[in-house]
């Protein structure tokens, strides 16, 4: 129809563009925008608002409405906006496809005959289920928050050993790398320890001490390269399952513990 005009309409200049929605409804929209979990969420809202039939989406109207909302979102986080912009492009593509006449000479290819909206509709329906499921989870957690267990007993802290995940390990490592950054060391070039030797040394230490505080171990490293080698050594030794990573308290220090070889 006027594809050129439509294209221009959707080139966003967030500095110059102004929201088109009238003032009185803008605030309400702004509040609503903050609640959308993504472009699909927004689309579902628009479809419901238009009381449209999801199996026959009025794509032109919906695209227009969607774009109006996008323009209002310039105050939101850019990362969020990127996903929304991708959807805007998708909607425009579908709208264009709907406007183009079907090629009468084309072989009756399954793709040609398929409704260009179908993929989007399938995605919307699928998403809708998980959105409702999320609501169910929210309600469950609210009920669960009304349930309490006994107060702490002395033995709790002593025994509870949470298995640390690699994620926790990375957090510890990050801390140390940052600390190292601040130290300015004049290092005379020295022979770097190999990974194999590092693993040997680490294994020796754990077997001798039975329990090794990772922070202490990493702090002994003098150069960045040694630090990285140490980290890899830890991963390797955990992988071969001679040791396990434990955290006695949440966000507490991580320890390497020798694994008892007998049946557990």
């Amino acid at each position, binding site marked *: 129809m006027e594809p050129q005009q439509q294209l221009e309409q959707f080139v966003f200049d967030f500095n110059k563009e102004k929201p088109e929605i009238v003032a009185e409804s803008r605030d309400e929209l702004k509040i609503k925008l903050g609640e959308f*979990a993504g472009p699909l969420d927004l689309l579902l809202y628009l479809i419901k608002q238009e009381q449209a039939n999801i199996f026959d989406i009025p794509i032109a109207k919906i695209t227009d409405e969607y774009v109006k909302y996008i323009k209002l979102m310039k105050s939101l986080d850019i990362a969020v906006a990127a*996903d929304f912009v991708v959807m805007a492009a998708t909607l425009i593509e579908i709208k264009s496809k709907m406007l183009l006449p079907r090629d009468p000479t084309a072989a009756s290819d399954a793709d040609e005959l398929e409704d260009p909206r179908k993929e989007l509709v399938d*995605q919307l329906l699928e998403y809708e289920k998980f959105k409702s499921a999320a609501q169910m*989870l929210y309600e469950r957690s609210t009920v669960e928050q*009304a349930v*309490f267990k006994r107060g702490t007993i002395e033995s709790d802290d002593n025994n509870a050993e949470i298995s640390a995940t690699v994620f926790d390990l990375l957090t510890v490592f990050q801390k140390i790398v940052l600390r190292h950054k601040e130290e300015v060391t004049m290092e005379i070039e020295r022979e770097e320890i190999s990974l194999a030797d590092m693993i040997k040394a680490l294994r020796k230490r754990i077997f001798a001490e039975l329990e090794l505080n990772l922070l202490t171990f990493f702090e002994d490293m003098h150069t960045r390269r040694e630090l990285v080698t140490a980290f890899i050594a830890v991963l390797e030794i955990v992988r071969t399952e001679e040791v396990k990573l434990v955290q006695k308290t949440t966000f507490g220090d991580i320890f390497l513990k020798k694994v008892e070889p007998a049946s557990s």
Partner: protein
Amino acid sequence: MTEPETEEVIIEQPEETISEAPARSAAAVMAIAEAIIFVSDEPITAKTLGEIMGEDKQTVQAAVEELQREYEERSGGLQIREIAGGWQIATRTEYHEEIRKFLKTRPSAKLSLAALETLSVIAYKQPVTVPEILEIRGVQSASAIKTLLEKRLIVTKGHKETVGRPMQYGTSKDFLIQFGLNDLSDLPSIEDFEDLTITALDQQ
């Protein structure tokens, strides 16, 4: 005749020696199980209870279920329930307000909508990769995943053996506990969440 007699003697021995090898009454099993469940800071399985008490799993399971019936009948402030595969004594939901007044705690921070959606996708589709989550939600979920990992609600579950070997995620035991589930089958089927208002072809 001698062989059967020998066997009988062996069987009878425990009773004669009056050792602490238990031939407990059902009530005793119930009482001990109750005490241990109370003290345990994590939900405890009938199997573990059995190992500790020297009873078999079925005996313990039956005892705890009977205990559960007693708790329900009593209509007291406590309940005993199965959660994350184990047994736990906890307060009843009816009294949470009064309890909060006493503990002076507020409900802990809720998950964001994005995190909840991501969590529901992972819960139902596990093990699932980041691109698969993106396909369903239509949004990059990196920060939601980070939050869920930090809260230990999800864990990594190896790699998918396809191009790029992407990381897979699944829910954790803490997830079951925080959402009051005994195991994943307690979740209603995802098909139950089809929105009939939106798919109704009659829009009037």
